[in-house]
């Protein structure tokens, strides 16, 4: 087959690819835009109908020959379709690129079906969605098989087979099960690939009989059933652990995952920043990968927003044309750096920060630029508090110049100097600061939001290592030996190990040899002791707690209890022998541990005497109390069901109540309504493209107006406390009289923000006339429930 030769090949006709191809077309550059699907912008095509698409970040100007502004999905897709028609873009649909070889000036792009395209340069603008894996069984091409689900509401009364055990399969199955008979075909026996929340939801739905699930299922064949007597027009044959089954169905939704776009890039020889599945490829400031001439833009490059991708497409083509083009973020960075007045330009300042800040030493320029976009330069006067012990914050600080004094608990203050990191303990634990930081003389610091820093920690191994190391040093000092000198702590920290465990997994088990001493870094664990047949919960350990101090002090050789994570948990550990040597040498640490273990022993005995309390405890943990910071608790003995709480919530939040009083679990007359618990590590924050979710100083997790309504947080929240709602501005009297139709407002994510900004505390609590509703810390909920359990036992 003959191969064609182009100056530029753009892969993927999403916003980034379209923008690049349009620029090439405009400038008369020979190009080809290859799209695997039959339509442009595959990801946006799959958005729900009439979805309002936002154009964040609003501060970033759009640089593209293709138009884009916030609006409905249909309007945007139509504008792009017109741009393809009018701007002489050489687009080829149904052309899936299966491999890329070569280097600058001589790339060969292998297409599915055997054709090849030659190009001097390649821009990959594939997005992260990838191409869905096909159902390769006899009959897999029948019209009843689909790979996406546009709207679950449109389907009613059907028998639907969902194949897969990932998040997409689970979410589809759950939404379809409301009005259809859904069967999940799961290749394995559980849902290990799914998010914890989704796995829990689907297990509950299966247990409740709302969804049928065939485990260890291997689809064999699909066929149409002739005649109309059958309950459904198709039948799928499946091999399962219980033998072959034939299941009638109207429709099959195959969510078999996607062929990852990463493999295409790796096949071409490009390197990635880390092995994490969501890691970005290693790119230059011009979006060039480690393969010269191969450029990566958009979501695959780690930039999930439409406008970013479009700008990058334009910039890469301008760069290929030999023009000097400043990145679109140049002006924003210049304004971030303006306060420094150091005489350097943006690039110079970036180099300086890169050289000074230890956490950023291994970070590539693009990642650093992105981090800077959300960061702020602070020049605090001497004596200014950067953060206070016991207060939440959603930022970390890196010292650019001068010094900062850090004081925690009983020990003498520590002085940190230029290049050092501050606030890493709150970053890791998701809890309030353990120390207070006060600016010294001539101090300049860089404040970075937790969300941006966490993204960097996830993608850059060097940053992760540095943060872990700093945390270990400071945690030993703050929690264990505030009096010790830096050398002692540094020597001890050398042997510290980091453990990451998922909910339900054990850190250690009763009867195992006592080898290491554990300190919880984030999340929480429940400690249980087995006596006879009974497994009793004896304690709960949150971030900052050391586990089984008594056993360690007594030099026990075998564990007398088990520790299981209640949520995803991280812990540090020190070798027991080494630690006991330290105890022998340092009477202060020993005294501290003795006091702690006396308390722990008394508490354990108390809990063991109250089996009911243990049950309550486990029940609450199973409802996510292990990671909650603030919980709305309704005393059912006081609640008269007047719904004043919901009314107050709606009245103070644009008419949309963020709590559902009657939903949620109840136990011993304590009811936990569906309302945000402001988790230590909010699940909602994990994947917010415009970075609109923040933690406020008092711990409230709040969604800002920059929300684009993508719904990621709604899906990610395991407690169902976030909803997408139209938050309409209040109509003016004039428009109400004139009955002018209210302006259409896009749906955005809304959730409880604990009435941040409203003086006097949460409106729901203040409006409860009988005193039934209170908002308290998770640990107080445990105390309250324990009290109730004890009262019931008596």
């Amino acid at each position, binding site marked *: 087959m003959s191969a064609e030769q182009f100056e530029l090949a753009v892969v993927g006709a999403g916003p980034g690819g379209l923008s690049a191809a349009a620029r090439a077309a405009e400038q008369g550059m020979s190009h080809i835009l290859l799209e695997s699907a039959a339509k442009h912008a595959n990801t946006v095509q799959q958005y729900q109908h009439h979805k309002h698409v936002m154009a964040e970040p609003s501060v970033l100007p759009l640089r593209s020959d293709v138009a884009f502004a916030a609006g409905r999905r249909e309007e945007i897709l139509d504008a792009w379709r017109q741009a393809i028609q009018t701007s002489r873009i050489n687009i080829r649909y149904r052309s899936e690129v299966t491999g890329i070889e070569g280097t600058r000036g001589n790339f060969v792009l292998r297409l599915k079906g055997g054709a090849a395209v030659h190009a001097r340069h390649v821009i990959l603008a594939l997005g992260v969605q990838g191409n869905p894996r096909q159902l390769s069984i006899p009959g897999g091409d029948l019209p009843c098989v689909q790979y996406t689900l546009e709207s679950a509401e449109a389907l009613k009364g059907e028998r639907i087979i969902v194949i897969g055990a990932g998040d997409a399969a689970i979410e589809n199955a759950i939404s379809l099960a409301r009005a259809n008979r859904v069967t999940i075909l799961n290749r394995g026996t559980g849902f290990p690939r799914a998010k914890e929340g989704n796995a829990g939801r689907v297990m509950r739905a299966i247990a409740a*009989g709302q969804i049928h699930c065939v485990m260890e299922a291997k689809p064999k064949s699909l066929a149409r059933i002739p005649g109309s007597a059958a309950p459904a027009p198709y039948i799928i044959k499946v091999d399962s652990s219980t033998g072959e089954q034939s299941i009638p169905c109207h429709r099959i939704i195959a969510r078999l995952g996607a062929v990852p776009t990463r493999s295409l890039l790796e096949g071409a020889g490009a390197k990635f920043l880390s092995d994490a599945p969501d890691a970005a490829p290693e790119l230059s400031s011009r979006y060039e990968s480690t393969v010269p001439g191969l450029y990566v833009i958009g979501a695959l490059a780690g930039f999930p927003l439409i406008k970013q991708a479009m700008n990058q497409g334009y910039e890469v083509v301008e760069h290929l044309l030999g023009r000097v083009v400043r990145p679109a973020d140049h002006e924003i960075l210049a304004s971030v750096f303006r306060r420094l007045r150091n005489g350097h330009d943006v690039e110079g300042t970036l180099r300086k920060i890169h050289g000074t800040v230890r956490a950023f030493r291994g970070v590539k320029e693009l990642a650093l630029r992105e981090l800077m976009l959300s960061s702020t330069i602070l020049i605090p006067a001497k004596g200014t508090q950067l953060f206070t012990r016991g207060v939440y914050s959603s930022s970390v600080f890196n010292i650019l110049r001068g010094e900062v004094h850090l004081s925690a608990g009983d020990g003498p203050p520590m002085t940190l100097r230029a290049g050092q990191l501050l606030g890493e303990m709150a970053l890791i634990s998701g809890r309030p600061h353990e120390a207070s930081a006060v600016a010294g003389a001539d101090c300049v610091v860089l404040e970075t939001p937790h969300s941006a820093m966490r993204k960097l920690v996830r993608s850059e191994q060097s940053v992760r290592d540095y943060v872990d190391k700093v945390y270990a040093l400071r945690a030993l000092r703050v929690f264990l030996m505030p009096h010790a000198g830096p050398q002692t702590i540094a020597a001890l920290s050398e042997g510290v190990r980091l453990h990451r465990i998922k909910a339900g997994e054990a850190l250690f088990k009763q009867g195992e040899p006592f080898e290491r001493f554990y300190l919880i870094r984030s999340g929480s664990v429940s400690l249980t002791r087995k006596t006879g047949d009974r497994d009793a919960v004896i304690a709960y350990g949150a971030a900052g707690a050391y586990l089984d101090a008594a056993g360690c002090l007594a030099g026990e050789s075998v564990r007398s209890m088990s520790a299981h994570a209640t949520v995803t948990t991280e812990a540090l550990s020190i070798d027991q022998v080494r630690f006991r040597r330290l105890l022998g040498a340092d009477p202060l640490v020993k005294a501290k541990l003795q006091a702690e273990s006396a308390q722990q022993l008394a508490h354990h005995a108390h809990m063991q005497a109250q089996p009911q309390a243990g049950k309550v405890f486990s029940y609450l943990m199973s409802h996510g109390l292990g990671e909650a910071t603030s919980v709305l*608790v309704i*005393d*059912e*003995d*006081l*609640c*008269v*069901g007047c719904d*004043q709480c919901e*009314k*107050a919530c709606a*009245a*103070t939040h644009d008419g949309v109540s963020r709590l559902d009083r*009657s*939903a949620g*679990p*109840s*136990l011993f*007359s304590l009811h936990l309504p569906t309302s945000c618990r402001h988790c230590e590590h909010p699940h909602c924050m994990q994947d917010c493209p415009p970075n609109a979710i923040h933690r406020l100083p008092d711990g409230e997790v709040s969604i800002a107006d920059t929300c684009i309504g993508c719904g990621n947080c709604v899906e990610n929240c395991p407690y169902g406390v976030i909803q997408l709602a139209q938050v309409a501005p209040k109509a003016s009297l004039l428009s109400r009289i004139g009955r002018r139709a209210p302006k259409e407002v896009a749906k955005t994510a809304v959730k409880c923000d604990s009435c941040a900004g*409203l*003086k*006097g505390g949460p*409106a729901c*609590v*203040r*409006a*409860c*006339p*009988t*005193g*039934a509703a*209170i908002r*308290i810390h998770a640990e*107080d909920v445990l105390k*309250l429930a324990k009290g109730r359990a004890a009262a019931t036992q008596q």
Partner: protein
Amino acid sequence: MHQSFVNYRNYRYGTLAVLVTIATITAYMLDKPRVPPNGGTWLGYTLGTIAGVLVVFLSLFGIRKRAFHSRMGTAIGWLSAHVYLGLAALIIATLHSGMHFGANVHTVTYVLMCVVTLSGCWGVYAYVRYPGLMTRQRGNLRRKELLQQIEELDQRSLGMAQGARRVEALIVDSIRRTDLDDPSFWAQLRGRDRSYIMIGTEAAVQPAHLVPNFDNHALIEQLAEMRLAAHDETTRATFQNLLECAGAKAALLQRLRRETTLAARLRLWLFIHVPVCCALLAALGTHVITVFLYW
């Protein structure tokens, strides 16, 4: 950690009300007017003013509890004050009257006040007693879950009855005519089960007719008869299962109704308290105007 409106802040408003009451009673005992005690003496005017101001303040609770942005105290504080000062107001108004009653607007005002206060006391009783009763009554099952369980039982029964036309028709009809949610307040309050069932649809013995199916009684009777008449073991087992479902559903229906009744009782007093309170405000206005215009 939870605090009821009764013991709010260690009976802050209860104490205040007791102090005000003691002070007014003492003043009443000590006061020796030239005429027998009545609303027209200096003390009478003073007590009347206090009681009048209190009534207006107590009515403001209705506004405050809807003012969700208000930072003037909390709703629970207002309710606590409303309850205790309301009781004190009635005592002060009684002292203000000097025990002079007659067929006039003044006595009407007093009677209305008594009705409002007594209905309020009933409200306090309802608020203190019923929520706990309702919680124990429903266990850890909320209304939605109860309804869900009922639906599941219905589906199970339908599944079992599939194929046997007569039984299926009976089950379908019993489900269709089950009284789950009567919108009328009085029906909720009385907690009557207005479920019906059509029986005898196929039998030639008697024509089809509707009978009350209170607590699934009629259905259970029908199923029991059918079980007796069944010839084989499998059919008997199916009927046994259907009977168990019907029994379980009856138990759930009872719980649902009991909860509905309690919820209605929790609100019943408000149907007296609020309208009579409006009447009281009107009467109080008339009382004050009459006093100043004609006395």
